[in-house]
């Protein structure tokens, strides 16, 4: 197992170098003069020269890449052209919001997806099976930005039950510890902030969780159907175990492995896929930060964010893979 982990970690190096190179290339693939593109048509020659100097565009290509890599390795992602703030600092400020949303979405997706998948598998071809699998098929085809607008219309505009945007209402104070509002409010026993954060989180989490929920439901059903046909399930039944115990302790435990892989992959995608959800719900996370940077042609921010998210994505996929192998002894033995 240790050898495998080391092998995978070593393998990460070329992939991450490739990722940094692609992120670096971003600035150089822009057609025309990047300084002109960033500053626009009205920039004076002095301003252009200054920016070229700041971005190091006057140096040879490989020198620029080596310097970029050196900076990135020391945790410096450069400064935003518009706010002049450290990009790494801005990213870390926004990351907890994205993480909280992704975790909440994953929670909703797992609870609903696994439950629906199990019930559908236990009663195949029942009305519930047909209904939930049709729902899952619609779920994977869902334009979530549209779903977002519809739930805002229904639950915020029409019913007035939940807030349409943001993370916290005006006037509610919350001390930042982890940056995850739900956790911080529990840690400080600030219950008004807890309920307010939860109310803000609910709609975006459900919307963002829709597609993974559908995928998890389909995966759980397929995996459960396969496991339920195994001999050890028949043995468990023959022993006279209760149906519930067979389903949860014998079947689900074994059927969960492929579901876990899907969850890991989906979680990585959620962290980045939050772009659309964050835009609709004005959620102050990384996704919205990137989109605003692109629209403002703030290329260093785009570069830094992409590098950050891609690295995170690679690491999550690695952890999923390791977890998968750690849980399943058959794979570990190979």
């Amino acid at each position, binding site marked *: 197992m240790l050898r495998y982990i080391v092998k995978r970690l070593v393998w990460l190096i070329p992939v991450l170098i490739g990722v940094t190179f692609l992120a670096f290339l971003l600035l150089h693939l822009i057609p025309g003069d990047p300084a002109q593109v960033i500053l626009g048509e009205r920039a004076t020659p002095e301003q252009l020269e200054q920016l070229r100097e700041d971005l190091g565009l006057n140096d040879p290509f490989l020198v620029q890449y080596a310097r970029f890599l050196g900076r990135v390795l020391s945790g410096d992602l450069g400064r935003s052209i518009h706010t002049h703030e450290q990009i790494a600092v801005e990213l870390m400020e926004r990351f907890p919001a994205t993480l909280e949303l992704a975790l909440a979405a994953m929670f909703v997706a797992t609870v609903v997806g696994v439950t629906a998948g199990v019930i559908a598998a236990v009663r195949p071809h029942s009305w519930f099976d047909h209904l939930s699998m049709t729902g899952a098929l619609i779920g994977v085809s869902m334009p979530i930005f549209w779903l977002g607008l*519809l739930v805002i219309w229904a639950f915020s505009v029409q019913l007035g039950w939940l807030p349409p945007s943001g993370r916290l209402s005006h006037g509610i104070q919350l001390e930042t510890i982890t940056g995850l509002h739900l956790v911080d409010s529990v840690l400080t026993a600030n219950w008004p902030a807890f309920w307010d954060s939860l109310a803000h989180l609910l709609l975006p989490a459900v919307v963002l969780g829709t597609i993974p929920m559908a995928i998890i439901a389909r995966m759980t059903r397929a995996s459960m159907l396969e496991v339920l046909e195994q001999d050890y399930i028949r043995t468990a039944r023959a022993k006279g175990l209760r149906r519930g115990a067979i389903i949860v302790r014998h079947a689900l435990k074994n059927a969960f492995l492929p579901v876990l892989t899907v969850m890991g992959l989906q979680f990585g995608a959620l962290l980045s896929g939050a772009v659309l959800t964050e835009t609709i719900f004005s959620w102050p996370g990384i996704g919205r930060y990137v989109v605003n940077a692109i629209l403002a042609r703030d290329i260093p921010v785009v570069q830094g964010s992409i590098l950050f998210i891609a690295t995170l994505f690679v690491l999550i996929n690695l952890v999923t893979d390791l977890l998968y192998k750690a849980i399943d002894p058959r794979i570990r033995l190979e």
Partner: protein
Amino acid sequence: MSMFAPIPHAHDSRTPAPASGPTPTRASGPWRDAASRLLRSKTACAGLAILALLLTAALFADVLAPYDPVHDADLYNRLQPPSAEHWLGTDAQGRDIFSRILHGARISLEIGLVSVGISLILGTLLGAVSGYFGGTVDLVIMRLIDILLAFPSILLAIAIVAILGPDLINAMIAIGIVGIPQFARIVRSSVLAVKEMEFVDAARAIGASDARILFRHILPNCLAPILVQTTLSIGTAILDAAGLSFLGLGAQPPQPEWGLMLKEGQSAFQTAVWVVTFPGLAILLTVLGFNLLGDGLRDALDPRLKR
């Protein structure tokens, strides 16, 4: 190993393939069986029906649409709810939503075909070369694919649009590039399986060139998984392109693109929900259509997978 068993040539693998290389698109046994299985599947037929509707809208939008999707803006009739005159209501500029959706079908189909065309051609080439030649070529190509896969797909598309500038063509290119790894991987694993078959040895024995073996003998036998992936990818491409347009990174006003219609409807949907309801429904149905057909094709082409 591929999920799919390669569908053998019209000629049995024990018979050397003739130099002319028959293509499996001819109504040969396995394909005819697959077609009949496809038509027996209710979900696949539902998908086909939705896609027929989409195709009709795309082809005959000029005839079917009661108004011009861009120029018939009636400012006195802004944000009208659905009525006999405007079946799906009007948007904030007083344009007929039904007409815009019909014309949007054409754009969506174009997006699907162009971007998946890019992924299909480049991904198939890379995967085929990688799987066929193996060794260093395989290693280099697959590492490049790994790096592409290190980027979450929507983010990579966004990055590419950031480079090329926001417009619909660039969004299609971006989505096309993002889809390359899936095709490359699927084609590579199919090629790996097929290249070990006897008819490939036979073709090699009669002196066929690598290119000929790869493109005339191996690839035609990898068509089944490629076909399924293409169908599913078109749906995803349409969904992603709508997402990019919604973010302002794809289609630009006044194009009647569905994602852009949702973006434009954002300012008015609180009081006029129909401006977003119908374009979104059009996206959902279209993507659903491709997914249903893709699932059906998968079951039809590989009966072992069907429970």
